[in-house]
């Protein structure tokens, strides 16, 4: 079974992202920060399942989105990570790219855009 991991400290955003990508053939798993996500990804993989994509906010307590990407990419170079954030500064976007993110989308997102970007990244 493949999962899309949604990582955001806002329950409202997590719910709206989950609703948008629910029909793309993957199970959905939610986490409220980077550390919570790493733990849940480890459990998913230990159970013999896999993660097809992570959708990650940038500014979160405990472990922020950029730190998550750096940590996640240490052991997994291939699974794409899409940043979904209110941050639009060029330097921050470059930081995300350098960390290993596959894309950067600025909130608020258009559901159709998010769906098509997720489909592109999971090919």
């Amino acid at each position: 079974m493949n999962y899309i991991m949604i990582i955001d400290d806002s329950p409202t955003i997590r719910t709206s992202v989950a609703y948008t990508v629910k029909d793309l053939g993957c199970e959905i798993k939610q986490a409220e920060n980077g550390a919570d996500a790493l733990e849940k990804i480890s459990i998913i993989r230990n159970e013999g399942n896999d993660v097809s994509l992570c959708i990650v906010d940038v500014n979160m307590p405990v472990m922020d989105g950029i730190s998550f990407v750096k940590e996640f990419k240490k052991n997994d170079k291939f699974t794409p990570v899409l940043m979904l954030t209110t941050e639009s500064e060029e330097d921050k976007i470059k930081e995300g790219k350098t960390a290993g993110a596959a894309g950067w989308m600025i909130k608020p997102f258009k559901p159709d855009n998010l769906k098509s970007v997720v489909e592109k990244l999971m090919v």
Partner: protein
Amino acid sequence: MASKEDCFIVSVTGDCMLVCLYENKIRFGGMCFVIIPGSFGTENVLTSVLASYGITQIEMLLADIVKFGGDRKNLTAKVFGAARSNIYSDGKNLSSSQVKFIKEYFESENIPVTSSDLGGDYRRKIYFSPVTGKVFKKILKNNSESSEFLRMEKEYIDLVFHNKDKIGTYTLFDGDAANDI
């Protein structure tokens, strides 16, 4: 904007809402201007980009609070505004839908609203102390100055509607696959 300075963040609201968030543990906070541009419930955040636009201003303030070391689990909110100014000749009433939306939003985010003053047909001037979380409020009279203010606020709300096609841009990083829309 969020701040740890011993100061007042001051703004005036008519039809729009001012949201003050306070981090009770680290003791600082911030204030933002919010407009929900239409008759939405929080369920519409799932499908409508305009509804989700409404919460983005709060999201940006929450992001600032996290950057200062805060945690949304320690937050309380105070909300003011959503007046009924009758500035729309077509009878569009943003007030009741905004009040409903903002209450539902904070419920779903598990952020307690400790104080609110919403509705009415008058402007409010709000003074927010980010280090104490206290708010002082002044009701402004409906005079010639208020009609000028409401005209400017209507322009702002209309701008939110008109700019709806520019939101939600994205970039893909890999090689030639970069997309900017």
